[in-house]
């Protein structure tokens, strides 16, 4: 089937060998690819009750049919695994160039099973596949790992066309918020996939390919892609100019930037770490991922400013919002350094920021004794922020507690309600107390606290009804559900949600024409929507079997009961209870949030 290359590598790390399998085209069509296909394979192949850090868990790298094509944002590789943070299935995805390179090498995905007796990395150079020893890489940061592997390749022309995914010390030490980094600064971030990779003694995946991805109808594909490009604002718009920090200005304007562990919605220091501060002080240049004309990545450099030194790529909005606003830190070099350390040690910067914010509140409320941390941990302590990120990645001292994520830490100190998380995964910055649909989206996300699995925020805040729409609970279930299916399709196709939103091309019609032009599989808008729903439900089935149920579809007590917001949103709380029953009903799930037999039959999952 076009769009796909048709082969998957299955690596048995315990035995140290691998096999090449054919992609099942029917399964690929039913689950679109990447996130959907990876989840289906995981659901079929493991017992959802397994310990996520045991050899019985699997780690699946999967591309979509549009990964490696010239479709706008066609660069996504997804890692599907059972999360050691949430116990749910998780599906972090990464841009950059690795996913496309894997397809050019001739593979749609890789399934890792078991556990290597000693550290190894996987080498893929077209048909040459080797499981190589990685003792010399163990303990190295992600940047060091990249440097060593590239130096070992020797030939500079080959090295420049090689792309690498690796874990840092955090993944090796099974830090529950450990990420897998690709191309140094892109992250398979959320849910602790890095820890799963570490638990398998798998340090890196190195890929080089010279092959092709073919599409079914190149002419239609080109026309669709050029039409999408037409809708991109000139030069890429504000996100090209300022990176995703541009989105932060919207958050600040509407008063929904979570501050000091979600105790406020206004961060007075935002102007010190925002898009203009970065651009005027530390920006080197803008960078885009493979096949994406909106360069949202910021290449930055901090040369010993206030004692901080770092250079890299990132300064992502959520990173600044969580490590900055949520921790009350408005020192830009410190926030950049903390973000840099997350990348270099291999950790999810959202969960890292959320966990530190939680620790700061525990400390300020007197629940976390100073002796446990080693120093004062008030909100706004930039030095502590940077030091504790490093200690978390290395599991040193108090970092060993932080490495468990905010929920387990807060529970240890007797106050789990201080963890701003859903299903034990830290929330992104958008304060969900007033913006009702966003709260519903967080509560029902299949991988815990997350804003990328529906992203109805724009619709809630910017719709024709004005911001008062945000405060309504009516119609929110009907708003969130199709958005969840849409984003499931985008993640599964191998596309980037962000750039499609910028190009206003994330509707089912656009997605269907791209998928059909790429695969020729006979997709219709209806079948694509149904595939999105199927993906959502198979994730739900996995979670239910893993013991994560309807009672976990909730929000932190603070969001539901204690008004935190000022300004236009003052006095409001999230009224999840008004939305959730309707959400279950519209989904064809019972009152406990379990899919009914009729629904499963309709989706071919019975």
């Amino acid at each position: 089937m076009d769009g796909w290359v048709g082969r998957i590598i299955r690596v048995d790390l315990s035995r140290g060998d691998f096999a090449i399998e054919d992609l099942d085209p029917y399964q690929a069509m039913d689950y679109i690819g990447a996130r959907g296909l990876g989840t289906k394979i995981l659901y079929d192949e493991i017992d959802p009750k397994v310990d996520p850090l045991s050899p019985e868990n699997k780690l699946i790298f999967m591309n979509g049919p549009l990964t490696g094509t010239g479709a706008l944002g066609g660069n996504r590789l997804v890692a599907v695994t059972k999360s050691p943070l949430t116990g749910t299935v998780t599906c972090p995805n990464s841009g950059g160039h690795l996913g496309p390179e894997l397809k050019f090498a001739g593979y749609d995905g890789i399934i890792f099973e078991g556990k290597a007796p000693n550290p190894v990395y996987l080498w893929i150079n077209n048909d040459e596949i080797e499981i190589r020893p990685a003792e010399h890489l163990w303990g190295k940061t992600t940047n060091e790992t990249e440097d060593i592997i590239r130096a070992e390749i020797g030939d500079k022309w080959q090295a420049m066309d090689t792309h690498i995914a690796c874990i840092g010390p955090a993944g090796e030490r099974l830090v529950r918020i450990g990420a897998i980094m690709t191309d140094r600064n892109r992250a398979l971030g959320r849910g602790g996939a890095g820890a799963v990779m570490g638990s398998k003694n798998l340090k890196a995946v190195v890929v080089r390919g010279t092959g092709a991805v073919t599409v079914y109808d190149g002419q239609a594909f080109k026309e669709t892609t050029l039409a999408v490009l037409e809708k991109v604002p000139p030069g890429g718009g504000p996100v090209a100019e300022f990176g995703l920090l541009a989105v932060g200005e919207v958050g600040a304007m509407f008063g929904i930037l979570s501050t000091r562990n979600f105790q406020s919605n206004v961060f007075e220091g935002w102007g010190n770490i925002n898009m203009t501060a970065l651009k005027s002080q530390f920006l080197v240049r803008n960078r885009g991922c493979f096949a994406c004309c909106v360069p949202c990545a910021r290449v930055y450099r901090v040369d010993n400013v206030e004692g901080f030194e770092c250079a890299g790529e990132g300064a992502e909005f959520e990173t600044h919002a969580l490590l900055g606003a949520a921790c009350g830190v408005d020192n830009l070099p410190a926030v950049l350094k903390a973000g840099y350390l997350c990348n270099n040690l291999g950790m999810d910067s959202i969960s890292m920021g959320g966990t530190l914010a939680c620790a700061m509140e525990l400390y300020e409320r007197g629940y976390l004794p100073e002796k446990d941390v080693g120093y004062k941990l008030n909100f706004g302590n930039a030095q502590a922020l940077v030091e504790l990120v490093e200690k978390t990645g290395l599991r040193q001292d108090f970092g060993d507690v932080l490495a468990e994520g905010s929920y387990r830490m807060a529970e240890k100190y007797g106050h789990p309600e201080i963890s701003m998380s859903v299903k034990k995964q830290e929330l992104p910055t958008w304060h969900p107390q007033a913006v009702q649909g966003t709260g519903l989206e967080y509560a029902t996300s299949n991988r815990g606290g997350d804003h990328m699995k529906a992203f109805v925020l724009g619709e809630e805040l910017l719709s024709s009804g004005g911001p008062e729409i945000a405060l309504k609970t009516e119609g929110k279930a009907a708003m969130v559900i199709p958005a969840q299916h849409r984003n499931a399709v985008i993640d599964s196709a191998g596309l980037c949600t962000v750039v499609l939103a910028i190009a206003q091309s994330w509707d089912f019609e656009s997605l269907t024409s791209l998928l059909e032009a790429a695969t020729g599989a006979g997709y219709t808008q209806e079948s694509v929507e149904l595939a999105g729903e199927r993906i959502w439900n198979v994730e739900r089935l996995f979670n239910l079997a893993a013991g994560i149920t309807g009672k976990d579809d909730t929000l932190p007590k603070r969001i539901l009961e204690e008004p935190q917001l000022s300004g236009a949103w003052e006095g409001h709380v999230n009224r999840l209870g008004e939305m959730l029953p309707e959400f279950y009903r519209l989904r064809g799930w019972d009152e406990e949030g379990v899919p009914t037999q009729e629904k499963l039959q309709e989706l071919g999952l019975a």
Partner: protein
Amino acid sequence: MAKIKVDHTKCTGCRSCELICSLHHIENTFNPKRARIKVFIDGEHHYPVIAGPYTDAECTAKNTVVIAGHEYDECELCRASCPVKPVFKEPGEDIPLKCDFCGDPPDPQCIKVCVTEALTLIEDTEDTEDKEDKEDKEDKEDKEDTEG
């Protein structure tokens, strides 16, 4: 005559140009290694290079060029396909690839997907054209002389 203006400072390293080039020249196919343009990504630098003609000899001198403080290997900046550089050749074969301006009149596809305008099509003045043509011809003759 039209020509392509390449502004490295505007390139974001997204390689959309490589992809559309591949699709334009090979039916239904995305393969950056078969494109006649390549974006080099080197630390903080990105620079697209458009494939020029094949030369059958290796350079006798290797150059490093410093531009605005950054060291470039001139091999990377060079547009030629040559015996020692595995760029601008069909993968696995030694058949050279060369930019053909996407036909006559020129209709370079790479320009169309370069939203940041690192690649733009500009009109050259007639004077320059004559001069360049002449220089090209002289260069070629010189080279042939040397090689001969």
